Structures are given as C-alpha cells and as structure tokens.
C-alpha cells in the first residue's frame, strides 16, 4: 500500500483504489447481494408485490430439498466434476513434470504457446468442435473405422462421456499451470538426491515431488472443480439427454421458468455446497488455504 503511494502519488493511488473498489462492489458484491435477497423472496405477480405474501422465507430452498431429481443432479454434478478434476490432475501431472524438469528450458516457451492457442478460441466454439468430433457420424469415428481400430461406430456422446471430455479439454490448463509452477520451483538436486539414495521413480514422486507440488496441485484442483461445477456451455452442448448438470437447472428456473427467486436460491446452494465440499476435501487431504494462496 505505502509502496503504491510512493510510486504513483496520492491522487493516482486514490483513483486506483476507488476503481478497484467500484469494480468489486458494482460487478461482484452488489449483484450477488441482490441475488441473495432474491433467493429469500417469492415469485409473485406484479400486483402482489409489497402485499402480505411478499415476505422473506426459506421456501425457495425447500423447493430443492423436496425435489429428489434436483438433488440427484446436484450430486451427479459434484461427482462428475470431481472425476474431471481427478482426470485433469492425472493427465497434467506428467506433462507438468516433463515441462518443468525434463525438457530444456529454451524449448518451454514454444510448448506453452502451443498449449495456449486453443484457449484463445471461445469456449462455445470449442464445445461445438468437440460436438462435431464426437458425433456418431463424426471424424473421430471415421478415423477409428478407417484405421480399423473399431468395427462399428461408437456413440461417444452418451451418458456423461461427452461432458467429461469437453470439460477436461476446457479446463485442463487451469490444472497444468499451477502444477507446472509448483514443480518448477523444486530444486532438481532433490530429485537426484532421492534417486541417489536408492528411490525408484514412483517413490521420488510420492515423497519428494508431490509433497512439494501440493499447493499447486490443490489450487489447480479447486480451480478446475469450481469451473466444472459452474460450467454452463460445455454441459449444455455436449450432454446426452439423460446427463444433466446442476447449472442447467438454474438456467431453467431463471430463463424458462422465469422464476429468478428459486434460480437464485439454487445458485447459492451450488456455491455454498461446493465451497463446503472443497473445504472438507482440503481438510481430509490436510491442505491449508494459505498454501493455495501462495
């Protein structure tokens, strides 16, 4: 703070702080507070607004508790988001290790550029691209049939398969970068010391690399999990008829049912329950919030 003061002077510092405060307040806090209030009000016809029925209640939240389908979809969202997180971790870790410790440092920027290019394409386009790739008559099946790996086309987009593939593709870099950062800060001599003391590769990773990379792994996991659970575009593009995502229910309440009150309640439930879930997992795995903030 005093650093800012010294560097930019009083006026500029004040302007910057005010702008940040405005951004936080107007674009993050106030809309959330409004939605939060919404979630306790009832969806009423205009003429009853301010009438005897216009009181705060937990009715909207009860809607969730009394809808077994919604509860099931909620748990599906949590479970499949966890699965995507886990798969992202399993796929990112070796790549991150390879980038951080195996390849020559001069080659890293090129590879990062190649990894980043897909991220410049909008999420909608990427989801549609996967929709096309995975479709029954699509290029993936054509390719696999062509080289004779499969005998007849596979229905890729069934159950949660499509959603899982799409989510992994969309969010894997949010896992890769923090894990890469964490691993590259490890002194390579420690890896060698472990090997020199007789450790096979897996033990070096288990005892030396992973403990060191834990904060990075944790922040990657939290990020990917929250992005997955809150994702709208991928599930709505790549879902099969029987695989629904909790965000789709929220969307339904808000834009099809036009009931913003229940929609808000559902949105807050998702947020609160996800935070709860993440905290429990972090507690179980003995990760602290300060580690992630680093």
């Amino acid at each position, binding site marked *: 703070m005093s650093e800012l003061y010294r560097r930019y002077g009083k006026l500029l510092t004040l302007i910057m702080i005010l702008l940040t405060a405005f951004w936080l307040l107007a674009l993050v806090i106030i809309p959330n507070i409004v939605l939060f209030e919404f979630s306790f009000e009832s969806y009423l016809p205009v003429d009853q607004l301010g009438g005897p029925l216009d009181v705060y209640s937990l009715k909207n939240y009860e809607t969730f508790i009394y809808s077994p389908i919604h509860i099931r979809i909620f748990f599906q969202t949590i479970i499949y988001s966890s699965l995507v997180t886990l798969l992202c971790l399993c796929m990112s870790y070796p790549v991150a290790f390879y980038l951080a410790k195996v390849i020559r440092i001069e080659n890293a920027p090129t590879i990062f550029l190649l990894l980043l290019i897909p991220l410049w394409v909008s999420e909608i386009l990427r989801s549609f691209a996967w929709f096309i790739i995975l479709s029954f008559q699509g290029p993936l099946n054509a390719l696999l049939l062509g080289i004779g790996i499969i005998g007849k086309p596979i229905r890729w987009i069934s159950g949660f398969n499509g959603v899982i593939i799409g989510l992994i593709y969309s969010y894997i870099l949010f896992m890769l970068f923090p894990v890469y950062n964490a691993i590259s800060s490890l002194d390579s001599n420690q890896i060698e010391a472990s*090997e*020199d003391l*007789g*450790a096979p590769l897996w033990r070096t990773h288990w005892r030396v690399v992973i403990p*060191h990379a834990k904060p990075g792994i944790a922040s990657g996991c939290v990020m990917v999990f929250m992005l997955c659970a809150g994702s709208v575009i991928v599930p709505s593009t790549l879902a099969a008829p029987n695989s629904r995502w909790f965000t789709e229910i929220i969307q339904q309440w808000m834009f099809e049912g036009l009931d913003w009150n229940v929609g808000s309640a559902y949105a807050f439930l998702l947020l609160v329950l996800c935070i709860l879930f993440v905290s429990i997992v972090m507690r179980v795995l003995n990760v602290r919030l300060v580690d992630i903030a680093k």
Partner: protein
Amino acid sequence: MSEAVELSKVSMDFAQFRAVNKVDVTIKAGEFFSFLGPSGCGKTTILRLISGFMDPTEGAVKIGGVDMIGIRPNARPTALIFQNLALFPLMPVWENISFGLEVRGVDKATRRAKAEELLNLVELYDSADKKISQLSGGQKQRVAIARALAVEPKVMLLDEPLSALDLKLRQHMRAELRAIQKRTGVTFIYITHDQGEALAMSDRVGVMSQGILQQVGTPMEIYNNPANGFVASFVGENNIFEGTVKSVKAGVASFATALGNFETRLGKGVAAGSKAKIYVRPEHTALQKTTAPKANSVPVEVGDVAFEGNFVNIFVRDRLGGTHMIQAQNDPNIALPANGSKMHMVFAPEHAVVLAAAATSSQS
C-alpha cells in the same frame, strides 16, 4: 565396507565441448581421495559420472571391479553429497536421514533408531524431530552426511560440501569429515577447488585442469614435486622465471633467463633447448646483501613487507619489473629489510625446478 573406484580413459562430451578428457585413475578402497581444480575444470562432471547421473562418452567406470555403465544412480553403491546438500525440506531431520532405509523397506522403529544412531555419529544430538529450516549451516552439513551414511555406501562422493560454510566451521568440519571417514572406512571421493582443504584432508589428490587430470599423488608429492607448471602454480605459491634450457648435466639443468643463468633441477617432459619456466617456492628463497657463491641469485629491490605472524612475506621487484615473493620464518631477532633497499634474492639449485606447462589434450 568400501570399494575401489576405477576410471579408465573416461571422457565426457557436452555437444562440442569436452568437459572431462581421458581421465585415468584408480581410487583405492578406503581411501580419502580429492579432486582439486579451478572452477569449471570438470570436477562435478566426474562425480556425476561415478554416481551414475550420466554415462561417459568414452571409457569405463568401475566400482569394486564391476562395470557401472548403464546402471542408474539408485542401483550404484555410492552416495552423493550435493554441492547445495539437497536435503528434503518437507521431512523432519530423522526422515531425511532414514530416507534411504525407507526406500529399502525398513520398518519405522528400526529407521528411527538408525537415524538416532547416525545423529550421534555426526554429533548432532536431540535434533531428530527438528525441521531442516531450523538447522544452522553446519548442522545441515552433518544431516547431509548422516543421510548419505545411512544407506551404507561403499563409496561416498562429496561435491564441495564445505564451500558454503564460514572459515572456522569449515576447518572444524574438515577434521570431522576426516574422522568420520576413518571411523567408517568408506572410500571418500572429495571435490574441492580449495587447495588447503585438499592437502589437509586427503590420502591422495588428483589435480585437474580443463578436464584433464594433471597429476595424482599424495599431498606431499603434489606440493614438493609438481608434475608441471599448472600444478606448481595452482597448489601453493611459486616464483616463476621464463627462459630456455641450455644444457643438462647429471640431472642439473643450466637455464638461461633475461636476468642471468640459473642452475635448477629438471622436471619431466622438458628437453634441452626448449623454452620453459622455472618454479621456486617462496619458502625456499632468501634475501641477502651480497650474492651467494653456490646458489642462484637475482638482484632485486624490496617492496612491501607483510608480517603474517608465524612468517613474513617480502615482496620484491627484479630489474625487468617481475615481482617475486620471499617467505621467511618469524623469529624475535628477524631484521626486516627496508622498503626500497637493493638486495639479492637467492635460492638453491635443488629447490628450483624447470617444468613444462600443463598437459593438454594433444599430449595425453
């Protein structure tokens, strides 16, 4: 308990650059052997070749008579102490020390007991449960040694492990390392660019320059009979005169310089008629008012005099501007020459030696 390490014609190339050039040496079982050389001469590379982090481009590495090429570090009977120690900061001290045992599937109680035992060996008591970050530099050093000893290596490799310590602790740890080596009987291969360290600790020293092993010998041999000019000037101080070998008679060379003729011993690889340099240790020279009849003598002008306590260094300048150092033992009656006085620097023929420059790749 310990094994011999045999390097035969070992070379290591990094792309175009030859970091180690045909190094040929056998380190005996139970020996304390030092590689001594300036920064970048390939010392660490040799250690990494022995520990197995890389294999030589040419030549063979044998430990206890077994060819080690292609064997990973985790399967070699060596333990390496890294230049920066590379302790595991997230494990407490005792887990660091017993990591090698954990790898070998030893149960926790035995591991803990062994760690305590090793902590006693390196004289670090009550530190088993400390974090690495709570230790001082010297204590970390000891933990690194204990960690390496825990796997009962046949050969211990140490890469300048004392370079990060202050002078006092360094001298203390030198003695300690030497004592641990004696107690355990393990072959120690020690790397340093500090000649004092190498001379004080080692049974034998290998002096390296630009990837080439220049000389192998006991500290006394290295100091008293350097094989070539590089060794002579890298290990200890020397006064150097350039000139030509005129003739050789009964092992005594007659050496012509711009300052006059000297009689000297003749080192290996120098032929009559060739250009070379002679090397004289400061402690083998003296200052006199007159020339000495049986010794070599150079007229000089006295410059600075540095009183070092047990001895005195007198810096002098010859007629051509070359500076030399004369070292005299201190005694209460010593008469120090005045700055600017004209005197003679004298040295006996048996204390001066003509040496060729360092061995280069074309010669070996």
